[in-house]
């Protein structure tokens, strides 16, 4: 049995109130105030990652004439998908359906009330459902916003929004369902009950793929979409001939720092409880980010002669990406090794690999999130091993750690990473193609030269 990160909203309150329970039945679990308070905080931290965090991180890296277009895209994508999450996203991701997608039972948040609760990772511990749906909303809304770095500075605003609706619906929601949807630990009372609960769990959950906070669902998923987008939209005019230097690395540092802090909401919040696993996830997230920052700085100084600030913050983000699927499952030394490897491999992702691919992935979404996500997914299978300081996986039927087979776990992790690459790649390609043959993907050459701030939004970021 896997100790995965998702859990199906279980309507325990409703269940326990149905007639037929004998007198003396256990009282319905009520949410713990500490858990609830932490999840409110964690959700706010992820909201902070989106508009100020990601917006400024990306915005600083584009030219001054496109600053507002990046800020605008992150803000509007987040808000548009937030609405769609309430309309159909939550239902399709987190209700019973098949192994690939949920159903329509909670369309328009039907049946969700202030009293309904969802399972966590501990038996008998629950969270208010509205809060769980909010926490998951922030993931569903920030992940598509990550993609815009691949085709920044040249895409039509309308094309971005249409793509995001298609990709959210056909790639994010199915991936979230496949990886995170399960019946919750309370369903695992016996081997038969576990087998029955498995019938409605997600495809990758049943494969045993571990993804604590979204390495496959968030980072590989978005990284691949950005690479496909960069390829389909084509390079910026003047790519590799004109200077496209970042206009404000100070903004980039401010944004990256907000992401760094917000990431604790993302990773530690994914424990869903303010408890022991949250403590582990917190420490691992912290040391992995530190290790990756040091690694990128050292390797850049060795290979390029000078350690750059942009390199150091890229290292921090790379470390946070790599530890995301592993943060509640590995030990601190495993996290440090993962961080170091993340810094080095993502450095290659934005240098050697980028030259090999020959695609203008403008802000290196694939090089950092795609490559870091794949590395993190695979290394989770290695360092989750109890022999290497990890927690292993939990057997909810026996209520004890299950035997850990690293080979089998690596196969499961490869299923997770491979499915995300192929699924997101195919959905993205079809979505971009559809937009290309209907309204078109790119702005005119004249508009691109003028900058998207003026040509698409009618305003300028700076008046000096």
């Amino acid at each position, binding site marked *: 049995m896997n100790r995965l990160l998702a859990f199906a909203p279980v309507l325990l309150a409703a269940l326990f109130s149905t007639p037929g329970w004998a007198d003396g039945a256990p009282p319905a679990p009520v949410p713990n105030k500490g858990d609830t308070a932490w999840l409110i905080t964690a959700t706010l931290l992820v909201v902070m990652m989106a508009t100020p965090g990601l917006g400024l991180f990306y915005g600083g890296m584009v030219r001054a004439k496109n600053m507002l277009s990046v800020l605008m895209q992150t803000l509007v994508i987040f808000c548009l998908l937030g609405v769609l999450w309430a309309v159909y996203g939550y239902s399709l991701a987190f209700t019973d359906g098949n192994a690939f997608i949920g159903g329509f039972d909670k369309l328009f948040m039907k049946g969700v009330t202030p009293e309904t609760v969802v399972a966590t990772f501990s038996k008998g511990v629950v969270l208010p459902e509205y809060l769980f749906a909010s926490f998951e909303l922030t993931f569903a809304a920030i992940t598509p916003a990550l993609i815009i770095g691949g085709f920044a500075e040249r895409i039509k605003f309308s094309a971005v929004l249409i793509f995001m609706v298609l990709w959210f619906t056909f790639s994010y929601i199915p991936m979230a369902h496949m990886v995170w949807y399960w019946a919750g630990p309370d369903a695992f009372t016996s081997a038969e009950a576990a087998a029955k609960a498995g019938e409605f769990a997600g495809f990758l959950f049943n494969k045993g793929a571990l993804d604590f906070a979204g390495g496959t669902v968030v980072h590989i998923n978005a990284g691949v979409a950005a690479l496909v987008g960069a390829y389909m939209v084509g390079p910026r005019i003047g790519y590799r001939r004109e200077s496209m*230097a970042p206009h404000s690395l100070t903004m980039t540092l401010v944004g990256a720092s907000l992401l760094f802090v917000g990431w604790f909401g993302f990773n530690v919040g994914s424990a869903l409880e303010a408890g022991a696993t949250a403590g582990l996830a917190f420490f691992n997230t912290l040391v992995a980010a530190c290790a990756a920052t040091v690694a990128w700085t050292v390797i850049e100084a060795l290979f390029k002669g000078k350690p*750059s600030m942009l390199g150091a913050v890229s290292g921090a983000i790379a470390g946070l990406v790599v530890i995301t699927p592993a943060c509640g499952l590995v030990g601190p030394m495993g996290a440090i090794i993962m961080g170091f490897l993340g810094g080095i491999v993502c450095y290659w992702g*934005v240098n050697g690999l980028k030259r090999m691919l020959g695609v203008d992935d403008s802000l290196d979404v694939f090089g950092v999130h795609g490559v870091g996500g794949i590395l993190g997914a695979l290394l989770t299978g290695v360092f989750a091993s109890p022999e290497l300081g990890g927690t292993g996986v939990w057997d909810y039927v026996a209520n004890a750690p299950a035997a850990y087979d690293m080979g089998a776990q690596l196969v499961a992790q490869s299923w997770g990473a491979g499915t995300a690459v192929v699924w997101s790649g195919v959905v993205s390609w079809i979505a971009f193609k559809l937009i290309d043959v209907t309204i078109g993907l790119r702005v005119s050459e004249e508009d691109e030269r003028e900058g998207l701030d003026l040509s698409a939004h009618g305003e300028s970021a700076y008046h000096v």
Partner: protein
Amino acid sequence: MKWISAIIKPFKLDEVRMALNAVGVQGLTVTDVKGFGRQKGHTELYRGAEYVVDFLPKVKVEAAVHDDVLDSAIAAIEQAAATGKIGDGKIFVFDLARAVRIRTGESGAAAI
């Protein structure tokens, strides 16, 4: 009347202003400019992207002077702006055909 246009290193601006003041130059106009001469540019590296920056930031100092202070003004700039390293800049001198002080309408030498 002469028009002096000097391209100098930005951090030398204050010294040049004080030196020109000392020889009796009453006013200047300063512009931030970019350019290149014999001094080479530099390379900037942003992750995998490398950009060669050919145009370096310089300051252009311009002043209208009387013929009799021309030589001392040129000498003042030369001395104040020099570091001895490549990229110190250049001084250009033009004949000035006419000058008018807008407030009073004075023209010619009286206007500068």
